[in-house]
Every structure is written in C-alpha cells, then in structure tokens.
C-alpha cells in the first residue's frame, strides 16, 4: 500500500486528485473516442488491403451485420434495450449456427458439442 502525499493538507490533496482524476478520465475517453473515430477506419482499411478480399468468413458476417440493422430501425423496432440486444443476438447466432452447426467442443479442442454453443 503506497500513498503519495503531495500536500500535507488532505483537502488540498483532495482538489489535486479531483482535478487530476477528471483530466485523466476525460483524457482516456477522448483517446478512445479519437481512436474509434480515426484510428479504426484506417486500421480496417489497411487490413482490407493486406487481405485483399481473401477475407471471406468475417466479411460475410460483416455484410450480414449491416443489412437490416441501421441504428434508426433498431431504435424504433427495439423500443427497449432488451428487444434491441436480443434481436441483435439472434441475428448473430443465426449466422453462427449456419457456420458452426458442425462445430463441437472439448477443452482440448473446441469442437465437440457445437449445438450447445447456442445453449
């Protein structure tokens, strides 16, 4: 348990932590926001170039992921979080099912009991 006493007076130290803390929290979220605003698109573009369309599997999911799922629609359809999430979820697992119906699971290999993948 280490404790930094920047000030002898806890109140002043409180203000320090308050200001420091707020700045850092904001900083963190800003960085995150920036990454997903600018970093991610670049990253995905690069990835696409590298894999130049070889990239089947996931792109499928992607496409699927897009169609019939603009925020507006879900916002209207899913007037409740649950509705929204669960639909989303069925949506995915529908795809997964098709993909994984032959999958199976075991701790040595994750491939026995794929059906239970939807348990």
């Amino acid at each position, binding site marked *: *348990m*280490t*404790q*930094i*006493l920047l000030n002898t007076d*806890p*109140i002043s*130290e*409180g*203000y320090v*932590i*308050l200001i*420091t*803390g*707020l700045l*850092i*929290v*904001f*900083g*963190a*979220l*800003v*960085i*995150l*926001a*920036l*990454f*997903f*605003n600018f*970093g*991610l698109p670049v990253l*995905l573009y690069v990835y696409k170039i590298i894999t130049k369309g070889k990239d089947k599997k*996931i792109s499928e*999911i*992607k496409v*699927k*992921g*897009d169609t019939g*799922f*603009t*925020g*507006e*629609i*879900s*916002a209207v359809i899913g*007037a*409740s*979080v649950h509705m*929204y999430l669960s639909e*989303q979820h069925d949506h*995915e697992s529908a*795809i*997964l099912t098709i*993909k*994984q119906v032959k999958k199976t*699971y075991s701790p040595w290999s994750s491939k026995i009991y794929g059906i*239970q*993948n*939807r*348990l």
Partner: protein
Amino acid sequence: MKKLIIIFSVLSLLIFIRPVLGLGANNEVMETTAVSNTQVQTPDEENVLDGAFKGIKTFYNYTGFANATSGHIIMIIVGIIFIYLGIKYDYEPLLLIPIGIGVIIGNIPFVAGNQTGIYETGSVLNYLYFGVVKGVYPPLIFLGIGAMTDFSSLIANPKLMLLGGAAQIGVFATFLGALYLGFNLPEAGAIGIIGGADGPTAIFLSSKLANGINVLADGTTVKNLIGPIAIAAYSYMALVPVIQPPLMRLLISKEDRKIKMKPPRAVTQKEKMIFPVVALILTLFISPSALPLLGMLFFGNLLKESGRTERLAETARTKLIDIVTILLGVTVGASTQADIFITKDSMLIFGLGAISFVIATCGGLLFAKFMNLFLKDGNKINPLIGAAGVSAVPDSARVVHTEGLKSDPSNYLLMHAMAPNVSGVIGSAIAAGIILSFLG
C-alpha cells in the same frame, strides 16, 4: 421383517420413555443396586424435569428474543422495505430482493461463538462474504456484463463517450465532500465511487480502500465501509427513476428536450470484435489498477462478439452472473449487521451518496448542453442523454428515453442514450483505478 421392526421400535421407544417409567439412567452406567437405584431415582427424576426448565431458560438466552436490540428491529424492517420495493415497484428486484433478505439474515440476533454471524471467522456467511471482502465477485459480474452489453452505439458515435466522463464529476465531488466531513483519504475515495452509480465498482474499490484492514501512514486503520457504500450505491441506483427526471426538467429547456438526433451508423461485426481488445489495452494502459474490472468487462464482451465463443458468453451472462449475484446480494445485505452498520458514518455516506447522484446527473446534463455549443445544427445532441452518463445501465438510459417521449412522442432516444450509459461504466471503472493508484 415386521417382527424385527416391532422389536426395534419397542426397544427404542422404551429407551426414550424411560424417565416416565422411572428407570434410572445412570444406574446402567454406574452399576448400582436396585435399592440405591430407587433412592437415586427420585432426585434424578426431578433433576431431569426441572433440568428441562433450566434448559429452556438457558436456551432462551440463545434466542433472538433475548438478544434483539432496536438496531436489529430497524434493520429487519429496512430489509422488508427493500423486498417490498423490489416486488411492488419492480425497482431492481434482482438486487433489492437478495440484499433485502440478506439484511434480514444479517440482523437475526444471535450469541457470538457458534460461527453464525457473517463477521465470525469460520461461519458459512463469512466464507461466502470472502468474495466481497477480496473483491472477487465484482470482476465476475463485469464478465457477465461484458457478455451481455452491446457497445455498437458507442462505436457508432464515439464523441458521446465524453458524456460518460462528465458524469464522473459526481465521483470526485463526493470524494471531496467526504474529505470535508472528516473521512481520511482512502475512505473518502471509496465513498466517492458511489457517484459512479455502479455497484460492482463500488464494492471493488471499497474492498481495496475501506476494508478495515489497511493501515495509514499515521498508524490509523481505515474503517470497514464496504457495507454502507454498497448499500448506498445499490439503493440510489434503484432510485434513478425517481432522482433523475426532476433534474432533467430543471436543467434542460423544453426546446432542447425536443432535439432529434441522427440515427447512429451501422456497425460492422469486425468493429465489434476489435472494440473490446483495443478498449482493454487503451483504458488499462492509462489506468492499470482498473485491470480486474475493465479486463473482465472487455473479456466478456469479446466472448460475446467473437462469434466463436457464444457458449462461454452465454454461460457468463446467465448462470455465472446469476450465481455471483445471489451470493453477492445476500452477503452484502448480511454485512449490515446492526451493531456494525448503524453508525454516524453510514448516515453520512447515505447523504453523500444522494448528493453524488445529483451532481453526476447535473454534470452529465450540463456537459451535454456545453457540447452543443460546438456542434453545428443537425449534429446537435439532445442534452437529456447526458443524464445517462451516470451509468446505472440501462435504467438511466430508459429514464432518458421516457423523458424524451414525453416532450416528443416520436423521439426515440434510447439508442443514443446507451452510448453515454455504457461509457459511464467504463468511466467510473477508470476513475476507480485512478483513485486506487493514488490512495491504494
């Protein structure tokens, strides 16, 4: 067969009704003659009978009736109220009901020494409470949360993340308030996190800072405030639908409340897969002490989005989180043992908790208005969603949604409110990490 059983039962009944038949007990034991027997008998008889009365008297001292204090009664009533609110008004039943029954269980008056109470080493409740004291339950709950949370709204509209940051003002303001009220730094830090409106985070941080174990530089031991802090956090989270609406109407003008936002863009599965990994690395590089919370949160989310581990995600968000919720709820409740719980500190903490929720909400709302100054028309955000930044997922988002509908029945804010809502969770976890680094 029958025969055997008859003999069996007759024999055993004989043994049992011996005193009635007046046969000496101890004469079988200490070979005495029939004479001494009958002599011994009568006293032995009384011995047993008034012994029974003595016995009942003795036992009475073990009963709750003998040991009940006003504190116990008050807390039991509190527990019943929790359960009533949960059942009747559907306020967070999955939390209020286990906590409520836990409060009752924890306040059954008992005589120490039989490993009954949650604070007695070796008692079952004490073993289950371990997961709270050591902060093991919260990360497991975050795992489940991650496995049930959809971050697309956040990915689609990253700038809304800032609202989740603004609401953290509640955390630090409360921290400051606690210092003013004379709590020492670690205690104040733990109390502040109530403003995060996030039960598991509150329990995690208080178990690290205000656990009644750590010793400060000046030799004083911190108080154990896990119970009050957890109860305060969950209670006010349950009351979000009561606390927030007035503040919204107070701070947001009618026109602003009518603002419609652009539908968020669609998010690809690939983005959803990358989000947890990148968010985990970025947030934890900034605030490593939040590792158990954010690590598990994003781990759970990756299980959900990877598309390959659905069965693990399903377990994490159903049975695993249920089991942990049951144990966490009942033990947190039981930790409110009257003699330990009913203190001036607890009262102060509840006061600060209320203020913190108010500040957090105001912070979110005002910051949303502030952001609008920099956004050109058409891109403006509806300031109401700022209130969702306090987390309390997804209640506050729903409250926002409802308020939005009141001012314009065609204005669906839920989707948009989810972004600040989940970022509020991340925000308060980061804040917890910061406080832990400074004061841990």
